[in-house]
């Protein structure tokens, strides 16, 4: 019996091993080519898709740099010949561009500063201090995220027009002082992750809540505050409906509304229009590239889509 086993293994084992080996190698090779194929296919799809998605940007840039005659050339040409800046000068001089820029920047920067301060204060109250009813009220904050802007729009317009604030930036800036539910939510989540020992130790040392907020929490939450600042800036730079409703006098307009007016006057002057659109887009794109990490963090933390 013993000998039989020995004999059997002695003869068959190397053979089976070899066969298994060959089979395994074949399977491995097959798997490798399959994986390579899958990889190639993935890249092909991704590259094709990103080309499609980049095309509008490239076309925008290309049109904005073309001389007028080339814009309407058929079939369309991609490379401007010669490169022309005149569309940009036309766009900037056809509308009081720098005035609109100043108005837009005022609203955006006011909102950034006001939101960072108000949202962080409110979030502190919802996370670092324990008080009865806190979490119930916080649920109310979250619930307000569901309210459509349309419902708020008309009555707030009536309030602001009674205050004489139509055609002033106030309706677009003052509300920021009261915080924004999205960012309060974001900052509260962030503060909840800060170890309580830190604030407790400070309290034992006799620090007031405001001191803890200012010296500890604000410093530790810089990345989250950057998200708030970034998205607030972007939203206000991009905002259309708000300025459309509140601003109609030329001196008060923002870039978005100025561009809208320019479009209705310029008609088919696609060159200057595309130049103006490029001017509107480029700060946001530049900001995105500089702060990419913060951006992506912000989206994944809160579900803000931009």
């Amino acid at each position, binding site marked *: 019996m013993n000998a039989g086993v020995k004999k059997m293994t002695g003869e068959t084992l190397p053979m089976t091993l070899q066969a298994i080996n060959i089979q395994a190698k074949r399977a491995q090779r097959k798997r490798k080519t399959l994986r390579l194929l899958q990889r190639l296919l993935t890249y092909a799809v991704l590259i094709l898709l990103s080309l499609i998605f980049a095309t509008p940007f490239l076309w925008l840039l290309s049109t904005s740099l073309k001389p007028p005659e080339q814009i309407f050339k058929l079939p*369309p040409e991609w490379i401007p010949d010669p490169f022309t800046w005149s569309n940009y000068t036309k766009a900037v001089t056809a509308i009081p561009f720098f005035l609109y820029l100043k108005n837009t920047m005022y609203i955006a920067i006011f909102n950034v500063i006001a939101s960072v301060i108000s949202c962080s204060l409110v979030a502190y109250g919802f996370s670092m201090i324990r008080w009865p009813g806190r979490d119930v009220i916080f649920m109310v904050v979250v619930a307000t995220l569901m309210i459509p802007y349309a419902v708020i729009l008309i009555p707030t317009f009536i309030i602001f027009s009674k205050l004489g604030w139509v055609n002033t930036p106030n309706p677009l800036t003052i509300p920021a002082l009261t*915080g924004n539910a999205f960012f309060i939510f974001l900052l509260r989540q962030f503060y909840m992750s800060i170890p309580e020992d830190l604030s407790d130790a400070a309290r034992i040392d006799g620090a007031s809540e405001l001191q803890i907020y200012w010296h500890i929490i604000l410093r530790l939450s810089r990345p989250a505050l950057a998200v708030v600042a970034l998205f607030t800036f972007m939203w206000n730079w991009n905002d259309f409906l708000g300025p459309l409703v509140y601003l109609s006098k030329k001196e008060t307009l923002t870039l978005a509304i100025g561009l809208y007016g320019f479009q209705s006057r310029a008609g088919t002057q696609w060159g200057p229009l595309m130049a103006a659109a490029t001017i509107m887009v480029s700060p946001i794109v530049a900001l995105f590239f500089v702060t990419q990490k913060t951006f992506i963090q912000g989206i*994944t933390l809160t579900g803000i889509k931009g």
Partner: protein
Amino acid sequence: MESSLSFRTPNSILIRTETGVRMASTALPLSPYPSRRMSPRTLRNLLTGLAFISPWILGFLAFTIYPISSAIYYSFTNYDIVTAPRFIGLENFRVIFTEDARFPTSVYNTFYYATLAIPLSLLVSLLVAMLLNLKVRGMAFFRTVFYLPSIVPDIASALLWSWILNTQFGLLNQTLKSLGLTPVSWLTNPAMTKPSLVLISLWTFGGSMVIFLAALQDIPQHLYEAAEIDGASALQKTLNITIPMITPTIFFNLVMGIIGATQYFTTAFVMLGAGPLDSARFYMFHLYVNAFRYFKMGYASALSLLLFIFVLTLTLILWRTSGRWVYYERGS
């Protein structure tokens, strides 16, 4: 505390909040005093807490509670801002449902847009996110390319797309021609305006894609490893692990999509106004025109209230039925 720390993907906003809040409140120390009386310390904390959140309380009263209650009041009045509101009962609602021929048009257009744009962009963003999740090199690059369109200001993308979709000189029609296809009147044919707008909305799927990507990366790897040992195919893994694990994110993107699509405005407004044969008269456009061109504030308030009730009901229904298809991980 622990569950609130795990807020990493946006699905948490809607759902894990509840557990987070519940956890946090059970963690509150029970007051040694029976109900009514508060210890001086609790009282002090209450006052400090309220002081910290006071900006929000003010905003909530001035920019949420007051507007909603006055919108309810205005909806029963005839109000042009200049003269005082005049109570007319249900007249506004009667006109909306029986006389205003543009109301059904705006509802139909919005519904058409939403039923096309929401599922399509969910599907596209999920598929692309799954592609990017295959651990491809240059992921950051592709993510950037797909995300960038979603941060372009609406006004700029409206101008850009007006040019691309231009019937005679537009890039899209020129491309179609060179491929031997017939050009399309994207923005002048009433039957094509809404599909064109859906097309534009698909360009900005990047936001939901990034959210999906984050959710996909949160799925524990060991689930896939276990499935591989059991010999599961790629399709089986997708259907039985990936999809169930990201249902909260699908739910989140769906609700956000509905809230966004019902208030769809800027792009269509800039590119088309009401559009040929009112084909781009969306609900929000109808509301805007009534409020800010005709100054029929009472009528527009009634419209806004109907929108609010609709969105609220739909969200609640989705929420209630979500238990059947949305899977929530227990604990963390």
